[in-house]
């Protein structure tokens, strides 16, 4: 009787389950938790209370965090607005600019592999009379700057293009995009959630006007994010989307999440100090994982540009094996799949499809997101496990058998269902 159960030995020092899905979220760094703790307990004040030490302590902590975050991206503290996370930051940036610059124009440019926080915001604006251009991406997942040049017209007010993609980890040429925007007098917003803290991002050198970032992707807490809003050359204005007490210079009302903000600040400080060594470390782990998988398995390939990629990202297709069944076999390893067999639509990842991958290949993809706390021993185990399960599932795969027999799958009349 055949079996898919894997008997891979767990190396010493490896605890199961292994977390390798750091693009979805990352564990809280213990140093961050330590910094946050007092602000849940003794230092619980409201940062907007001006009349007592509880408020002053909270305000001081918030301003220190603002400084730490600004430093990480080359901004000044006054340019940082706190939000509940990157989805809110993206909404505030795009809707806030669209509203504020409505008289100048109604055209926005974005691209097809953006996060839904950007795409769905743009779609909503289309219902309100805005015109949105969705640039395509090339097979490597990067936009063509010539496409962007051609798309900008005299009604364009905003270009919003992510710094790095959450699924395939490819890094867009954001510095060149920003330069182009500045030459044409168009504002540039970037969703830099996956890039900040992982690769160098400098709002001045990279010509960024507005930038979204998030706490929980950089080993900070969930429920806190920030929006960088440039104050000079040009001074960017944003219409508030939440009204209330006029916090955050009127751009985002609501009592500040002080412990969260302190955590985001600390996480930014650590990221800044450790980025270079951590990037080299993650690249080493990631390259080792890729090499192991490629040497043991045929019909595997990397999705998206290998050269322009986040250090911790490996997105791979294991052709002729369906992604969800692979995840089921490696259930002591937390990764994610581009197969949407679990979703109601049954549509595979729109990001992978945008690269021109066939649905069958998109259904076979796995995203490995390596992070600060992963080890080489974990990589060794994950590689062995994935290889084992892929081989077993291919024994079960009629497609793999047919391809091995030399049958051209594209010549078969499949009955789509």
């Amino acid at each position, binding site marked *: 009787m055949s079996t898919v*159960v894997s008997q891979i030995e767990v190396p010493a020092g490896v605890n199961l389950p292994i977390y390798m899905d750091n693009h979805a979220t990352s564990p809280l760094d213990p140093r961050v938790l330590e910094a946050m703790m007092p602000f849940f307990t003794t230092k619980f004040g409201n940062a907007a209370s001006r009349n007592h030490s509880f408020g002053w302590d909270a305000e001081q902590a918030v301003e220190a965090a603002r400084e730490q975050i600004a430093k990480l991206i080359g901004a000044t503290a006054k340019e940082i607005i706190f939000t509940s996370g990157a989805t809110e930051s993206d909404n505030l940036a795009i809707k806030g600019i669209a509203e504020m610059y409505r008289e100048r124009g109604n055209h926005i440019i974005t691209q097809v592999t953006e996060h839904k926080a950007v795409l769905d915001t743009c779609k909503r604006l289309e219902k309100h009379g805005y015109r949105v251009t969705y640039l395509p991406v090339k097979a490597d997942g990067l936009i063509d700057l010539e496409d962007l040049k051609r798309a900008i017209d005299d009604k364009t007010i905003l270009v919003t293009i992510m710094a790095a993609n959450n699924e395939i980890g490819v890094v867009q040429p954001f510095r060149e995009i920003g330069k182009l925007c500045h030459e044409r007098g168009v504002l540039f917003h970037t969703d830099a959630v996956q890039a900040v803290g992982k690769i160098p991002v400098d709002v001045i050198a990279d010509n960024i006007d507005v930038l979204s970032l998030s706490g929980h992707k950089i080993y900070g807490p969930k429920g806190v994010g920030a929006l960088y809003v440039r104050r000079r050359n040009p001074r960017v204005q944003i219409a508030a989307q939440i009204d209330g007490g006029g916090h955050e210079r009127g751009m985002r009302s609501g009592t500040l999440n002080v412990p969260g903000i302190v955590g985001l600040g600390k996480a930014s400080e650590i990221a800044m100090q450790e980025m270079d060594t951590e990037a080299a470390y993650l690249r080493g782990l990631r390259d080792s994982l890729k090499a192991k998988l490629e040497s043991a398995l045929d019909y595997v390939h990397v999705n998206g540009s290998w050269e322009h990629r986040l250090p911790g990202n490996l997105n791979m297709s294991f052709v002729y094996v369906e992604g969800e069944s692979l995840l*089921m076999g490696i259930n002591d390893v937390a990764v994610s799949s581009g197969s949407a067999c679990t*979703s109601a639509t049954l549509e595979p990842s729109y990001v992978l499809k945008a690269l021109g991958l066939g649905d069958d290949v998109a259904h076979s993809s796995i995203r490995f997101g390596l992070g600060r706390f992963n080890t080489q021993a974990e990589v060794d185990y994950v590689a062995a496990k994935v290889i084992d399960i892929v081989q077993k599932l291919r024994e079960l*795969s009629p497609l*793999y058998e047919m391809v091995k027999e030399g049958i051209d799958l594209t010549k078969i009349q499949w009955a789509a269902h």
Partner: protein
Amino acid sequence: MAYSDKVIDHYNNPRNVGQLDKGSAEVGTGLVGAPECGDVMRLQIRVNPETQVIEEAKFKTFGCGSAIASSSLATEWIKGRTVEDALAIKNTDIVKELSLPPVKIHCSVLAEDAIRAAIGDWKKKNGVAEAEPAAVTAQ
């Protein structure tokens, strides 16, 4: 997504994996689904020409755990049945047995299609008309 124990059992220990000789007159092959939909099942049966009993069933499936389980279960169920009995298996029986959630019902539909396709192929090879009842065999 949480899988039922039965789905996990079939996924971990799939029954009747393999391939039968496609060229044999006693073998019927059904290949259903499409790679771009994320599901392809191949189900094969070997039918005893005297008794019309399915003596052997094999499958291979590209698909999620529920698709693998549905086809594995289908081979288990049809083995030992006559072809006409096997046609009585409904996708809803598979849904019930494996406790499939609504988003996975298509896996059971595909398994039923695979049974029908394999039997259809066998009938075609052996000149048994689809509409007619199967030839009566003396017991």
